[in-house]
């Protein structure tokens, strides 16, 4: 018998579910694995090699060999186990462990992780956001908008107190630019509300519901064209689907951070969450600038003053004293900067459209 035995590794053997241990050797007895006491004697456990479960190698932590009777042989001799596995055509320590070893080839793994990680952040997340925006059925933004409107009407807004004529004047101007949007006039509904605590404001909900507050109209005075310019900016938000995009991007970033959370530690995770917030703000500023440009384009097409919305920013600067610069902590670009960008873009646009008319 002894001549057929090949020693694999030394370690400890435990009966099933017991912390009692026996110093033992793992041996290969012509295709059967057995744990034999170090002191000699009858095998403690024995099983056909394919019925004994050998735990996968991780670093140099102890390996477990679980026999079919539930008893366990534990050893620190990883190399002995790997030699046995390799000799029996069971792949040695396995592919994952082969990759993990601290050898020169690990540099390739590091580079691949950085390149792919960067690609996911740079292209993967934006792509997923685009796909998510495309496959979102129109009923989702409709329900979102309906709910938001109901909630605001119940808590903050009250019915408009603007004269009928003023409202018609704004609605007519709005219809002219809305008709030029790919969604068409039917794609938008304009609502007038007394803004209450919200004050002078205009905003768009993702389904094309637009709201302009009485306070904003009053602030504008007789300049209806300026209000239309602001509404064109809101149309820009709807066309470019900024709300959905921001929602999905936030979810994507949270998902990315969550995935690597266990591997970076809670301190670094906190820093990443803060950084993610700053990145989200930069997207928000970019969205505002894109909507500003859309306003200029729509207004120019409809035959209005393309830079009408710039007058709104002048008004903000004068009446509300808003001269704030852009900082990495703001959701909108600084007001003076926005006004300048709009005027520049309006100039470029008229310069380019001039040759077309000839």
């Amino acid at each position: 018998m002894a001549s057929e035995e090949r020693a694999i590794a030394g370690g400890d053997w435990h009966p099933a579910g017991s912390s009692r241990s026996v110093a033992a050797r793992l041996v290969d007895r012509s295709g059967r694995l057995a744990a034999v006491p170090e002191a000699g004697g009858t095998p403690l456990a024995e099983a056909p090699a394919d019925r004994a479960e050998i735990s996968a190698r991780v670093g140099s932590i102890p390996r477990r060999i679980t026999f079919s009777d539930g008893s366990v042989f534990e050893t620190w001799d990883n190399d002995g186990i790997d030699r046995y596995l390799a000799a029996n055509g069971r792949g040695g320590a396995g592919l994952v462990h082969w990759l993990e070893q601290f050898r020169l080839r690990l540099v390739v793994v590091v580079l691949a992780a950085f390149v792919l990680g960067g690609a996911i952040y740079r292209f993967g997340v934006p792509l997923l956001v685009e796909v998510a925006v495309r496959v979102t059925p129109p009923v989702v933004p409709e329900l979102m908008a309906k709910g938001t409107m109901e909630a605001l009407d119940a808590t903050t807004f009250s019915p408009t107190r603007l004269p009928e004529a003023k409202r018609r004047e704004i609605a007519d101007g709005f219809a002219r630019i809305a008709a030029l949007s790919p969604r068409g006039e039917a794609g938008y509904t304009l609502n007038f509300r007394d803004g209450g605590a919200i004050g002078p404001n205009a905003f768009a909900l993702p389904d094309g519901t637009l709201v302009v507050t009485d306070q904003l109209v009053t602030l504008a005075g007789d300049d209806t064209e300026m209000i239309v310019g602001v509404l064109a900016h809101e149309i820009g938000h709807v066309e470019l689907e900024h709300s959905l995009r921001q929602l999905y991007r936030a979810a994507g970033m949270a998902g990315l951070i969550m995935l690597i959370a266990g591997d970076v530690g809670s301190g670094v995770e906190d820093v990443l969450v803060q950084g993610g917030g700053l990145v989200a703000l930069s997207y928000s500023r970019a969205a505002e600038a894109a909507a500003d440009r859309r306003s200029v384009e729509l207004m120019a097409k409809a035959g209005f003053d393309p830079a009408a919305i710039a007058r709104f920013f002048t008004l903000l600067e004068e009446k509300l004293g808003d001269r704030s610069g852009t900082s990495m902590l703001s959701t909108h670009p600084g007001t003076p900067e926005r006004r300048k960008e709009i005027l520049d873009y309006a100039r470029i646009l008229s310069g380019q459209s001039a040759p077309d008319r000839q």
Partner: protein
Amino acid sequence: MSLAGTSQPSGSVPGQAGGFHRVAFTGKASEYFGIWIVNVLLTIITLGIYSAWAKVRRNRYFFGNTVLLGRAFEYHARGLQILIGRLIVLGGLIVLNVIAALVPILVLLPTIVILVALPWLVAKGLRFSARVTSYRNVRFDFVGTAGGAFKAFILGGLLAVITLGILSPLASRWVGRYIGSNLRYGGKAFDTDPRLGPLYKSWLLSLLIALVGLAIIAFLVVANLPTILAAIETPGAVTPEQQVPLITSLVAGYVVLFVTFAVAGLFYRAGVRNITWSATTFDGQHRLMSDLSRRRYTWIAVTNVIVTLITFGLMRPWAAVRMARYTWEHTGVTFAGDVGELFARIEAQGSAIGAEFMDLEGFDFGF
């Protein structure tokens, strides 16, 4: 390996005298680096699915290198099991958030459901963590209820927040008791009752650190007071040139707040660990012990974050191994009586074996 079982007469564990034994940590940064970066790469390639298996390899590495009396702890969870648990929790969260996004009146629904389900998930998660952990072939178990988790985590956390941290030591005591007294090993109980006196003593130091941070912020506010007052009285009077120091101060204040509260929290965490572990007994006679230096622990944690960030994460494995080594090497057990005899008697109790398949991983709680 030097730690391999030595030749002993069969039928008994190596006879080892009782008394004090420290835990050792044998993990190496270079070894964990490979495991870590392969985990990261495979997680990216599989768009996150591998993260469950990555967690298993990570935990197996850390548990398997935590050594008491020459024998390592073991982590037994399976990747698939963790993946299923995560998908269930994630699916629930998505459904709740979609409902909340569509019906803004129900915006608080996810928060309410999570608050109600959280104690249950915490209890389940702790039980899962305990049941997939073994030492010397015997699994741990956890018998805490959802009600206990509610008191320790939700009620305790709420009290700590409402009282601006004044009742934090009480919350820490509840958490320590909930985890430490519901843990079982081989059917025998752990028991802990950290006393409020030492907890408050530890808390006081963190309070002082937090006050220093608040003093710096108060100084920044006073320094910028003329500009701030001018901005409030006559909006628009602040020129862009004046805004520069204001924004610089704002960012500095934010960083100071973040750093001092993190440091205060780390000091407190180390203190609570020492007090709770040192107040814990196993089977009523074997005493656990933790003797972290709060300053050293905080230094390691803070420098770990800094080094990890400036190396774009590449030194994270080193940082993780460094922290594990420090905490485990400052942990020990005083055994009453002969260790060999003790471990010859311990048998797994039926309920803990294999029952983790019925559990969800839920939330991640390590021991």
